[in-house]
């Protein structure tokens, strides 16, 4: 009995909305869009880190909410996921040895966050957990879920802190700025050691602390230049590369003797 009634109401509402959109009772649902000026970024060997700017817009923002600054946006640039082994050193007979380890699946190699305000001011810790949003809330999936939860927690924390220490996980509070009521600009940091591969840019919209919508785009980061060609050859034609390395050494040895010969 309820089904058809609800259906009828929905039709009525949509008819009303179509007829008089401005005066509709239900406020239009806000949306978010982001755009990247390019879908691939080439970084050279001497890359020492950079800021990446992402533009985006809100769809159908409520002017009142916008004026009160109750819209918040979080933009994340997530690196390609990889399995990661975290190892802990312990003392054995005075020597520091890698003993315990924990493997995590699908760990983003990098994770840069830009926000309108400090994370704790935007929404509840629980909703971050649900969205797996923010370096400290990112869910790290252990390869062996049967491990001791305390150990998993310890190694998860270590993984996050090492990633943060190397600049791969970063947070840029105030990195998202509204340029107008519905246009915003996000600045995320690319670390000098940013991994190559497919990165995912995601934007999260919050209204008065409630998550509304997410939008995403893809970005390819590749390294270019002489050094990268060497890297590719070393991995794709490793035998030839080895032969080349040996020949280079012999040539250098021979040249050294020709140039500096004493006998």
């Amino acid at each position, binding site marked *: 009995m309820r089904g058809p009634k609800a259906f009828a109401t929905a039709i009525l509402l949509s008819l009303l909305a179509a007829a008089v959109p401005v005066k509709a009772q239900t406020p239009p649902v806000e949306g978010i869009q982001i755009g990247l000026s390019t879908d691939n970024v080439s970084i050279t060997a001497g890359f020492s880190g950079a800021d990446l700017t992402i533009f985006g817009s809100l769809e159908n923002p409520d002017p009142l909410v916008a004026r009160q600054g109750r819209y918040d946006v979080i933009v994340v640039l997530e690196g390609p996921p*990889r399995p990661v082994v975290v190892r802990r050193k312990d003392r054995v007979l005075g020597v520091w040895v890698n003993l315990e380890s924990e493997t995590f699946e699908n760990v983003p190699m990098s994770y840069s966050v830009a926000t309108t305000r400090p994370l704790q001011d935007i929404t509840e810790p629980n909703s971050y957990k649900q969205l797996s949003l923010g370096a400290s809330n990112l869910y790290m999936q252990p390869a062996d879920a049967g491990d001791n939860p305390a150990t998993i927690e310890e190694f998860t924390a270590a993984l996050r802190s090492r990633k943060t220490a190397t600049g791969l996980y970063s947070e840029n509070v105030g990195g998202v700025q509204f340029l107008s009521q519905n246009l915003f600009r996000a600045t995320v940091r690319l670390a000098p050691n940013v991994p190559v591969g497919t990165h995912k840019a995601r934007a999260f919209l919050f209204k008065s602390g409630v998550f509304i919508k997410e939008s995403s785009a893809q970005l390819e980061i590749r390294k270019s230049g002489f050094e990268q060609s*060497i890297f590719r050859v070393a991995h794709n034609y490793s035998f030839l590369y080895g032969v080349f390395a040996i020949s280079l*050494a012999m040539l250098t040895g021979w*040249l050294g003797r020709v140039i500096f010969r004493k*006998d």
Partner: protein
Amino acid sequence: MGIYLPIAEISVNVFVLLAMGAAVGFLSGMFGVGGGFLITPLLIFYNIPPAIAVATGANQVIASSFSGVLSHMKRGTLDFKLGGVLLAGGIVGSTGGIFVFAFLRRLGQLDLFISLLYVVLLGTVGGLMLVESVNALRATRSGAAPVLKKSGQHNWIHRLPLKMRFRASKLFVSVIPVLGLGAGIGFLSSIMGVGGGFIMVPALIYLLKVPTNVVIGTSLFQIIFTSAYTTLVHATTNQTVDVVLAFLLMAGGVAGAQYGAKAGQRLRGEQLRALLALLVLAVAIRLAIDLFVTPPNLYSLTATGLN
């Protein structure tokens, strides 16, 4: 001037590496050793990942050994047959070493194993050399004629079967210890990134009684091939050979070696050996300290899957 190493994936200073190559080349010219046992630890101290330092060290050793062999070939101080048998053993040992290397790397124990091996080997060789050379220095100072140890004409090694004649070395000896020595050196070469001259030379002199004049040429000859093989296998299985890094070290090395050889002619044999012993011990102690000092980060991350 900074340069980005494509395989090590870090930025380093060109001049530091050239100077490092030149300094080690100088020492290797002075003492007549390949210098691999100095290059690899120095690279590790310079924050190059140990796996890359080892494979690149092996590559660098080829250059200095090749340059040395050319002059020994000209002087005829090289036993190709003995070198060939050593080499046959070397290939086997090196292959085994590569597997151990890849296995330890997966376990996360490679860095520790390399350091331990260095500390033990350098500590032993350095210690023995120091004792020997200090005794020799004392003997010459007190005026006594240096007593050459009467080499027992027949030790246990000379009683082994499968004897073979090596004409250039005036030697008739079983191939078992020769193959074994080659294999041992090959194993160390692939795990430590050394040519192994600092073990090979004393072993050939004291164990096999090879005449001193053909020892260095022959040792260098087999080191070229063992390190070439090691380089090739590291390049194909672990992708850890960095040619840019190796080239910088070689370029500094071949230049430094010539000046080192000149400087070496002005010092006496036992003084040289005492200095080399001190140097070897210093490297061993520095590596040993790192094993015991609390590391700044107890946790380390390794991304697996794609390398």
